[in-house]
């Protein structure tokens, strides 16, 4: 198979890294080679975060090159726009519609684009926006946005849903398992 490239974007603190871990572990559990990479450090302080998951028979580089991503998962609309050029033609974009102000907007130095969703649709006509926060809250925890977002792309992954569920069980804390599984299913149905 060709290399399957996933880009996950969001804001520091949103759980992009755990979502990446779930996808990478699921690929490994399915017998595939996988590389996963993100940059931490400064990103923790509310900065823009981007993570790559690459799946295939033999994966070399840990980095996804713009124009080659099969899926872009964005936890925030502005970040979807920031990284939409990573998608290959016909690639899939799923984004969380709940906005988070960048510090530049919070301090009045910049304006959050009011037409962010229109711009996303313009850049990627098949883009799908969901309210991941509402789904996560319904599942029992606002912090489960990351699992909702994984659930939302599950059908497109070269991985069985049962494998992903197994990994979510394994990486979750005991009391969080049910919430995370509900969030995953909620995302798939959203």
């Amino acid at each position, binding site marked *: 198979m060709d290399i399957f490239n996933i880009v996950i974007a969001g804001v*520091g603190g949103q759980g992009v890294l755990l979502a990446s871990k779930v996808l990478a572990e699921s690929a490994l559990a399915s017998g595939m080679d996988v590389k996963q990479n993100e940059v931490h450090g400064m990103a923790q302080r509310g900065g823009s975060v981007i993570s790559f998951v690459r799946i295939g028979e033999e994966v070399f580089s840990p980095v996804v090159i713009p124009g080659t991503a099969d899926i872009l998962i964005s936890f925030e609309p502005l970040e979807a726009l920031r990284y939409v050029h990573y998608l290959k033609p016909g690639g899939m974009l799923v984004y969380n519609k709940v906005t988070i102000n960048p510090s530049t907007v919070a301090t009045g130095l910049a*304006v959050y684009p009011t037409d962010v969703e229109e711009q996303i649709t313009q850049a990627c006509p098949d883009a799908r926006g969901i309210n991941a926060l509402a789904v996560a809250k319904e599942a029992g925890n606002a912090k489960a946005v990351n699992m909702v977002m994984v659930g939302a792309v599950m059908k497109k992954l070269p991985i069985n849903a049962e494998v992903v569920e197994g990994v979510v069980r394994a990486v979750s804390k005991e009391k969080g398992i049910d919430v995370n599984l509900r969030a995953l299913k909620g995302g798939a149905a959203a």
Partner: protein
Amino acid sequence: MKKIISGNEAIALSFGDSGGVFASGYPGTPSTETLEEVARLGKVYCEWAPNEKVALESAIGASIAGGRTLATMKHVGVNVAADALLTLNHTGVNAGLILMVADDPGMHSSQNEQDSRNYAKFAKIPMLDPANSQEAYDYVRDGFEISEQFDTPVMLRTTTRISHAKGVVERKEKIAPKIGPWVKDVPKYVMLPNYGKIKHVEIEARLLKLQEFAETTPLNRIEMGDTELGIITSGVAYQHVKEAYPNASILKLGLVHPLPERKIREFAGQVGRLMIVEELDAIFEEQIRAKGIRVDIGKNKIPLCGEVNADIIRAAAGDPPAEGTAPIAALPQRPPIFCPGCAHRGLFTILSKLKVFVSGDIGCYTLGALPPMSAMHTTICMGASISAAHGMAKVNEIAGRTEKPVAVIGDSTFFHSGMTGLLSLAYNKGNALVIIMDNRTTGMTGGQENPGSGRDLQGQPAHQVDMVTLVKALGIENVAELDAYNLEATEAAIKKGLETPGPYVLIDKNPCILRYRIKSPVLTVDQEKCTGCRACLKAACVSLGLLPPAEGKKQKVQIDPNICDGCGVCAQLCKFDAIAVAR
């Protein structure tokens, strides 16, 4: 069993599996998780040192006492440890010693972009450069063997894309730790000039032996493919090369110093165009050209700055890059900023208001340099805030300028190398206001313990140095406490520190809210009282946002309850009492 782990985790795991006995380091992105993972292994001794020099010196002692040893640090940490390293290369080791250094091409989280391969060349010691997590695991074991076989420290170099990239790793059979004898050997370990002279001759002889080793070791391998293009590369650049040209001939170097001359010559003779792909400096290229070997593509086409990727490599070889669309221009940037609830916010709100010159340092508080605070005017290296402020004050005095500089430094950075600057300030009759933000953690790297946190690397209770006693012991008489959440008191304290001649130290003891999970009741904006004056936005907090404008009126502010930490800085900036705890 196969696991998917980062390069840092792989190094830690292998240290445990390869008979490792002692590990020490100082946090620094992207190296930090290595030592944290060694601690998680549970059975191997490891510790945070106050700085990288202490870490390496302790590692040297551990090796002399007979235990396999690992020291971990980021690239700039090696500058701090360089004094030890450049004599350790003379003494050699007893048990194997690996210095793991994590470079940061692209400067994702660093103040410079130095290439640590220069240190291996400088110190004339072997360096290993893994290309994925599996190699990071394997090279620890190889490194110990090389270290012991050749009586030399070995540098294990990673980059951000190795340290933080996760890949599949298969473990090897575990080697039980063996502790060798602790022997007195004056000519080996006492580097008086007479012994040092002998050692220098040995270093040169050792390097020749290592060159021979480099010719035959499987760490350096030739993958013959299409011979039109031959590429010499190492580390993560190898992965980008495979991505760009899966069928090209490649000489992959695992041991990147010293270089295998015969192997390179043989490879160069078999290929059409010879290309060298290395991130940052032209270290291979300069050495290879110096041997009279023709290089067709190298730093003439590949940038000296930043990371490489498959597109850059393809373009350098004259092929079109992958079809990509350009990023959308003119989007609001999302730079990192103080966390909601962070005590640094209050401090920098006041420093910004007072328009003082702030000599800064390395830590979360460096973000105070960004707009709208823009209240940090130098950041050089760990510990430089106080010593640089001292130099400024001296020249100001000579020039007859009356403004007193302010140094801002965190607890971990102060212990690292700020203390010596403060000692100088006291000793040399300095005139600076020093603000120590003692939040009881090494924050920017994710919240590690330090000598002031009261816990060790394992999270166990440890001696907690008392900051006030320490500062006084260094010779500072004027020491006062600061509460940066209280803006009025903070302004008064800073003004007093500036007005009082001589060294003056303010210590803020508010703990890191992220590390210690502190949350106060969420604040809300009374829309009746808010005038839209935007004074609160000076707090630079991401929980604040402007509401859509009502017709003919100024935009009012709202607070996102999911993000607000209830610190109250924005409420103190509001002149209309519009911000209060949500009812």
